């Protein structure tokens, strides 16, 4: 599996997002910033939807690296209990079924679903939706 960047998720099966815990304050952020100020910490695989929207038009390239043929996608902020709220795609859910507070779990999805060897990005899907 090709990931969009190094250091975003753990090698576990299934993987966890890697956050950074500020050594002085204990504050958790995502992704883990480089340097000594933060130590990597595995983030919860489950959380609840904090907010969301639908990206209805194709973002400009660069920086966007998604496919030329654009289909709207959902993006959300997911609250991971006692850690941090992270931004990620929402997957395996119809737009009309998305609602704040819904239970979600981490998954990995292709940036371009049509690609033969796609780049994978973190996403959240309804908890217990599929194996």
């Amino acid at each position: 599996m090709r990931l969009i960047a190094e250091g975003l998720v753990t090698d576990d099966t299934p993987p966890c997002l890697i956050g950074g815990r500020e050594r002085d304050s204990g504050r958790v952020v995502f992704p883990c910033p480089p340097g000594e100020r933060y130590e990597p910490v595995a983030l919860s695989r489950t959380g609840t939807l904090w907010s969301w929207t639908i990206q209805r038009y194709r973002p400009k390239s660069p920086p966007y690296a998604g496919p030329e043929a654009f289909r709207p996608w959902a993006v959300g902020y997911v609250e991971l209990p006692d850690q941090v709220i992270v931004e990620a795609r929402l997957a395996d859910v119809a737009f009309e079924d998305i609602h704040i507070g819904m239970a979600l779990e981490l998954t990995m999805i292709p940036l371009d679903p049509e690609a033969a060897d796609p780049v994978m990005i973190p996403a959240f899907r309804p908890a217990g939706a599929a194996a």
Partner: protein
Amino acid sequence: MSGDVCIVGIGIHPFGRTDGLSGLDQGVYAVRQALADAGIDWPQIQFAYGSSDAAGNPDTMVERLGLTGVQFINVRNGCAAGGSALFSAQMAIKSGEFEIGLAVGFDKHPRGAFNAMPAEYNLPDWYGEAGYMITTQFFAAKIMRYMHLHGISQTTLARVANKAFRNAVHAPHAWRREPVDMETILEAPLVSDPYTKYMFCSPAEGGVALILASEKKARELGKPLIRLKAATMRTRPPKSFEVFAPSIDIGGGTATATQIASADAFRMAGIGPEDIALAQLQDTECGAEIMHMAENGFCRDGEQEAWLAEGRTEIGGRLPVNTDGGCLACGEPIGASGLRQVYENVVQLRGDGGGRQVPGNPKTAYSHVYGAPGVSAVTILER
């Protein structure tokens, strides 16, 4: 210095798209208009602060206005650039160093959404590759949360846009001056849910110039005294929710730079939100106006639903908001946008608003800008 800093001259180049005229040209146009309004000539200007985000260095306009050797300082401060120029100008007079000077802002942006790159914001490349470097996306997620927490409907968002275009009909400097009905706004294509295309402002062009003077100098010029009672610029506190945020603190989204800038401005002016007769609030999208009504202390979170339904922010309402159509109808040339709000407030306090004039002889006016990454500037004017 004794007395207040006063605004003695105003000028504006119409906002929107002006092919063949650079951003600087539009700034120079505004300065000449402001000089004429104040009844002075360029050599009398003792200092200038100029703001532009994407249209070149403002100080180069001395070549067009006259090589008088004037002190001219350029300001770049995101969406607060114009407010920062104005703040700096009033400090120069308050300090006693100068008696009369200029705050000018202009800009000219390419069409379409602002195109941000991750490295400019100290973010990893993957964040942009995944499609998250989008201001409209952030604004949509931000209002979605606010609507959920405080019971704001999409209809209320549409009322904000509907009011903006109606007010702009009477503002010669506005860009989009045709009324748009509620149904058209609500049924237009979604850009990012819950916002349709009429609910976002667009990057644009324009220029604004304000001439500031000590009270003594203003009296000499014989101008009506429009007093700058407060000008503040503040940055974000912990737990704010800003554009291009891969993560937010738990409990975030509650504290903002606006709250700080606003509270400090009211403290300086010695008055409260209930004393304000009209306000220009940053409305880069409909929800911004909604959230900023509360963040600036004019109502509590959630009360906007009733305020908009009852027309309290209309020209004839209890607190008219964005009387020239705001960013929604004027577009957003970053360097000029905050100064446009103050321009409009001076017009209103002078009673020169024509078809958009706030009735009842208003004596106080408020302006507020907000931008990335969590900056805000507020002014309070009194006549």
